[in-house]
């Protein structure tokens, strides 16, 4: 070893004074921004101690009726991708967030931020795609807003949608109901959306066409609700993938999650792309998959219901909820060992080699 070697370390970057991309990446930085800024200010510190765990949409009492309410903003690039477009995504995303509270989605708003110079023809295709998706999901787009920004101030088109749904009587689906012994299921194979987007964006070529899984899940959820109170919690898998969704639930419900790696479905093309890029498919984005926590005695019934449904694509039981290691998602590998499936700080970055 050279004489002059020193034990080196950079000065830590203590905090960020400006917004970083990782603040929107679905990982830990985003969770902190939400918890420490948005929730802290909007809900007040006293209430914060007692608030129920955050969910994809919030359920409000409106004179006896229970309304689920949510909003989501869509900034995908490219606007058109294999298996969908930003319009389909904007409807499915919000409809799915409502469905995860057990609600029947009813009404959506649509806000458009358009960049000067954006082709009207592309906008027409996107709006028609929104309407088609809304019709098949049984929702109506009933209000909206349009703003145009200078060329260079927007990435072509941003869409915000907000949605309202009605939660049927007797339905209570939330992280608070998750308990040790529950079985964890996914509705299909993972990672298609993220890899499809990446392959278009980066010009990567993979064997066999890979399409986004972008789809409405509300009919699937309506079918799953037939098992009644046994359906404890639902979460659609979006940014941050399965890992982010289960970490949020484990934290919110103060339970542990134990997964069997071999049971988690991943298509060979997705697995291959992830191997090549040094990505973990359990962190890759989805737009038409959900994870369900159900009472053990209803697990097989739910699996059968999912199996017969067109919005599920190879559903599977992938693990269970435990009372140990609260807040932690553990993955049992095929070789017998186990590892932690932690929340990433931001988006996954492809590795060097």
């Amino acid at each position, binding site marked *: 070893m050279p004489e002059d070697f020193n*034990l080196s370390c*950079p000065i830590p970057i203590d905090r960020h004074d400006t917004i970083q991309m990782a603040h929107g990446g679905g990982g830990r*930085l985003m969770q902190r921004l939400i918890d420490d800024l948005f929730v802290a200010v909007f809900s007040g510190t006293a209430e914060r101690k007692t608030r129920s765990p955050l969910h994809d949409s919030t359920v409000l009492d409106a004179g006896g009726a229970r309304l689920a309410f949510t909003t989501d903003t869509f900034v995908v690039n490219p606007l058109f991708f294999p298996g969908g477009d930003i319009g389909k995504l904007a409807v499915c995303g919000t409809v799915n967030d409502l469905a995860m509270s057990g609600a029947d989605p009813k009404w959506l708003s649509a806000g458009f931020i358009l960049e000067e110079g954006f082709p009207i023809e592309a906008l027409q295709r996107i709006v028609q795609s929104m309407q088609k998706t809304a019709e098949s999901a049984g929702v109506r787009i009933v209000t909206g807003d349009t703003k145009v920004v200078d060329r260079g101030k927007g990435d072509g088109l941003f869409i915000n949608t907000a949605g309202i749904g009605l939660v049927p009587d007797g339905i209570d689906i939330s992280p608070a109901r998750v308990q040790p012994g529950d079985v964890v299921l996914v509705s299909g194979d993972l990672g298609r959306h993220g890899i499809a987007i990446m392959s278009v964006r980066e010009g990567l070529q993979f064997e066999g066409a890979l399409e986004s899984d972008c789809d409405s899940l509300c009919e699937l959820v309506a079918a799953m609700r037939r098992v009644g109170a046994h359906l404890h919690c639902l979460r659609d898998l979006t940014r941050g993938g399965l890992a982010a969704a289960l970490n949020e639930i484990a934290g919110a419900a103060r339970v542990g999650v134990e997964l069997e790696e071999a049971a988690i479905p991943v298509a060979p093309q997705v697995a291959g792309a992830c191997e090549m890029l040094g990505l973990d498919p359990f962190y890759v984005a989805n737009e038409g998959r959900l994870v369900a926590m159900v009472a053990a005695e209803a697990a097989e019934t739910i699996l059968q219901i999912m199996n017969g449904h067109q919005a599920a694509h190879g559903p599977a039981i992938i693990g269970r909820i435990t009372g140990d290691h609260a807040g932690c998602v553990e993955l049992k590998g095929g070789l*017998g060992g186990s590892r932690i499936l932690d929340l990433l700080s931001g988006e996954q970055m492809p590795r*060097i*080699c």
Partner: protein
Amino acid sequence: MKYVDEYRDPQRARQLADSIRRTVTRPWQIMEVCGGQTHSILRFAIDESLPPEITLIHGPGCPVCVTPIEILDKALAIAARPEVIFCSFGDMLRVPGSEKDLFTVKSEGGDVRVVYSPMDALTLARKNPEREVVFFAVGFETTAPANAMAVAQAARLGIKNFSILVSHVLVPPAIEAIMTSPDCRVQGFLAAGHVCAVMGMGEYEPLAKKYRVPIVVTGFEPLDILHGIEMCVRQLEEGRAEVENQYARSVRPEGNPAAIRQVCEVFEVSSRKWRGIGEIPRSGFQLRSEYEPFDAARRFGVDQITADEPAECIAGLVLQGQKKPHECPAFGLRCTPERPLGAPMVSSEGACAAYYRYRRRRPEGEADER
């Protein structure tokens, strides 16, 4: 998945672990050189299947982790310039320099882009003739051929607005530095299969002889690593110190002659600083004088930037295999992937990050704070 699943077969893994258990009679310390191997070991919990006699020491083979802070400061200075499109592999973006990282430069308006190959950066240079495109050429021997090819092509095509910031390091000098350290605990090496696929095995023979240490060229899948360990343990138990090839499906003894030719045409061996270790003579590449016009450090006048690396974390000890990541008092507390104190916490190949991701259990209380 074909060509992957067969190297992750649980039954075969158990057989190899059993064979290691039967072979071993006393404690051995084996270093896997490459960060990709460290990642696999932690991801598949390979170390948990080994008998207690075997200790795996995680080596300095993560390019992100050993890139010295002053090169990062040079990268940050170049990336902040308005005329520059700065291209990098994704996992360099979060590595802290003295004051910031590339993500921060990007949020401040720098044009920083993730690419998958230096050839992508060359394409960007051709598409944007009015901009300066700089590629951050980081890595071991594995990434050197493609980086050399990009520079050679730029020269041939007369592309003037392309340059690379070179931070290339070499495995054999690092093995030598580790073996000559007075605190060296390593008794056997798993050499990095991909590096040898390029450079061949010839450089390792003199090392094995001189230091009486077995070196097994090893792949990256669980069965590769277990097999490499088995071969290494067998040598240790039999008192042999040879270079063996576990990864024969990819590595030929002579390496890849075409790739070596390309590398030697563009690069020459030079001294390099290693983060956490210091300067090692003849341990890296620099551009040959005829390719100096493509040296971004010269082109943008950042040659003079130097940076001291304040001693806070124990990255140096971790990279030399003298400490495990979780033995650092800052691990998981003051040092996390969001706020890394040292580079091994940044890259997913870094030993600290691998431990953080796969081994750390969140403290029970943390869920309550949310």
